[in-house]
């Protein structure tokens, strides 16, 4: 990874965020920039892929390469891009609706591939951009326009599912603490393999339950517990289920021992796919033809 000196200013996009004042997405944007500065990542070395939603507008608000894609579909785009250009840092930023709702299947499968992508999920426990319907992470009983009597589904537990699905880096951050979040993002980018960073991101307009205060009253940092070992899957499983008065943030789980998807593809050993010469040598094609005679 590059180690140039990069300033916050260099990462400034000409585009003004359209987020509501106070939205948790600002904290995430800030943390992402900090992480790039800390890692010395220059704008052209990073590729952000997002879905559709409030938070998914982030790629426009940072100077870097970006792709605002479809609701729920950034993950496979990121995978295709990364395999074609694997010396780029690839970061997915999408909403809880994108990733835990409509895009759940892509998520389930990218985790077991351990591709080297950092995945930041803006978990505001609500559908922001479509004006406040409940999200897969909304707490049971959450009242919204599409659940006027309160939801009757149990929420998705992203940390537990990520553990079960084979993610090799699993963390949770809070957009109200961008410094801590930046640190998680730095570690996620440094991690060789798929890194999930689920981020509590208050939606100040639609989610009147899970507010900054609500989170602040409950969250604590796993790294403050000296006994917590993120290499221990059983411990991570237990912590994944902690929800209520105390809710952990930080790194739940790391496994540095598995090869990445890219490392297992021989075609990528030499140089990135996009740099490879095309077409193939005519002799090779002619030789293949002979197999059909």
């Amino acid at each position, binding site marked *: 990874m590059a180690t140039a000196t990069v300033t916050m200013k260099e990462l400034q996009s000409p585009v003004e965020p359209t987020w509501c004042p106070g939205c948790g997405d600002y904290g995430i944007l800030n943390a992402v920039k900090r992480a790039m500065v800390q890692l010395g990542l220059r704008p*052209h070395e990073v590729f952000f892929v997002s879905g559709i939603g409030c938070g998914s507008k982030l790629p426009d608000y940072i100077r870097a390469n970006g792709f605002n894609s479809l609701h729920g579909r950034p993950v*496979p785009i990121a995978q295709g891009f990364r395999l074609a*250009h694997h010396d780029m840092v690839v970061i997915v930023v999408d909403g809880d609706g994108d990733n835990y709702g409509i895009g759940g299947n*892509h998520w389930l499968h990218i985790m077991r591939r351990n591709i080297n992508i950092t995945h930041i999920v803006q978990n505001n426990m609500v559908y922001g951009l479509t004006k406040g319907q409940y999200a897969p992470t909304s707490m049971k009983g959450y009242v919204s326009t599409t659940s006027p009597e309160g939801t009757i589904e149990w929420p998705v537990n992203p940390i537990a599912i990520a553990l079960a699905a084979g993610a090799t880096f699993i963390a949770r951050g809070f957009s109200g603490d961008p410094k801590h979040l930046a640190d998680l993002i730095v570690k996620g980018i440094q991690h060789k393999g798929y890194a999930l960073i689920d981020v509590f991101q208050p939606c100040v307009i639609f989610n009147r339950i899970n507010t900054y205060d609500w989170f602040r009253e409950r969250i604590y940092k796993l790294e403050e517990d000296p006994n917590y070992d993120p290499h221990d899957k059983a411990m991570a499983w237990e912590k994944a289920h902690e929800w209520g008065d105390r809710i952990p943030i930080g790194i739940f789980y790391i496994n540095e021992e598995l090869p990445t998807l890219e490392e297992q593809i021989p*075609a990528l050993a030499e140089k990135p796919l996009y740099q490879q010469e095309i077409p193939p040598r005519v002799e090779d094609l002619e030789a293949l033809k002979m197999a*059909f005679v």
Partner: protein
Amino acid sequence: MVKNDVNFKLGGEAGQGVESSGMGFARAIARAGLHIFGVQDYMSRIRGGHNWYQVRVSERTLYAHEPKIQLLIAFDERTIEDHLHEIVEGGAIIYDESFKGVDEEAIKMRGVIPMPMPLIKIAEEVGGNKLMMNTAAVAAACGILEFDLSYPESVIRDNFGRRKGSEIAERNIRVAEAAFEEARRRYAHLFDWKLEPIPNAPKRMVINGNQALGFGALAAGCKFVASYPMTPASSLFEFMCAQSKRFGIITRQSEDEMSGILQCIGAAHAGVRAFACTSGGGFSLMAESLSLAGSTETPVVVVLAQRPGPATGLPTRTGQEDMLFALHAGHGEFPRAALAPGTIEQCFYEMARAFNIAEKYQMPVIVFTDNFLANSIRSIDLDAFDFRKVASEIDRGKLILPHENEKIEQALLDGYRRYEFVEDGISLRIPPGHPKAVYSVAGEEHLPEGFIDWEETIENRNRMVQKRMRKLEIAAQNDMRLPESYGHEDAEVTLVCWGSAYGPVREAVDTLNHNGLRANMLHFVDLHPLNWDQVADVLNNCRSWVTVESNFTGQLARWIRMNTGLKAHATIGKYDGRPLNPTYIVEHLQEVLAKV
């Protein structure tokens, strides 16, 4: 005696090796310098049921199969029941003499010669394995055809030699020899059709449409394939997987079809030629992403290998039912191109061309095929696939790759705008990675810079729509090709078709002309965009034109009418899942012409 003009069919249960025997036999015949056309018919099950494989042989190039056969090779009794009526007088059936339910009298009544053979016995006694019965059957066929056994033997050696060790190959060959001798001795004198090698014939490939598409993709420099298995596209994907190591291609089996095309969009965005392949059901799932490719101007190729629907329909059979769907698939309005190769050769060249069109116009390109074209084999001259030509024609359009520093420095005076408004609608494309071309693109309506147009102005919207759609006009002008004619120059009737109908229609045209009706064919490879005024001129010059396609609603006819207002004088459809064939077309043409 009829020399080198025979049509035979192998039939049996799934799992009995009907297809592999048929293809092996066809390959052997091609090695003898003869032309073959082979077509399969199988059910959506892995064992049991009834499958068949039909091979037509001739000294001239063949484009289709015909319903009438001279020789039936039956791996089970049902094959005889099902196909007896297809055999011409003087034709024969080879089957195992242990089959109990065979009604020899009924066979003879039809003027067909029953040729029971101790196939299983030979397989067991000589080969030590009952499963070699199919080798025995093919060899017996060679016996009555008096076809030099060394050709099938060479195929057996190539097939088994590589995979299962030569011991098995040798045992198969011993089985073949025994069956051959026995059949020749018993029956050769009764059978009128013979196969004789052509001396000094050029070497030929025996290859199907999907393999040809794969060759086209390889030759065009495709480096990334992501797909989810779906008949009849799977074999194309599997071909690419098999070549991935040798050619340094990344092939990814995706979790679903959305992921397939989206991974390709990601790879294409990075500057890599990529395609996904699927059938109608999977294509349905790709519609939303196709629209994204249209919006973001990402050059991605999708092969749509059709089969009969709706829903799962007849999943191992053929149809051309998805044209209008694919031409309109995806929400909103965006440019795309669609090509429908009709022959093995076209599969090769059009697949390569699809990548050029996609990159030149920065838009998705759909390549249609179907189960019939995908799986039918033909003998093709080696030089019919001209890799140098394809290589020399590679056109990546306005693409500069991010490591092409100098080019970028030259091109960028002003800062980079991915969707710069330019006359022809086609903006400079620099995939991410260069410090001078850092940008973000969006499926929302965007500014020339690529950012979401947060002001959503009318002017930007109108210009962006116009920019995108203008590419279609330019493509229609510069790159798209009018339908091609074949047959009589001054035809009384023109058969208009697209894609895989090429072969059957071409042969139908030959037959019609031979029978004295002046006919020709107008075959569409390029379906969209097109210069429709010119198409209308062509059609207006036809005395009478009849569309021929494998569907119920007459989709090509509807498409032509939508674009020209012209109505086909009649339409011939087939929607039973079975491929078109020349006889069917000639018969139905007579019917519809009688009505017109």
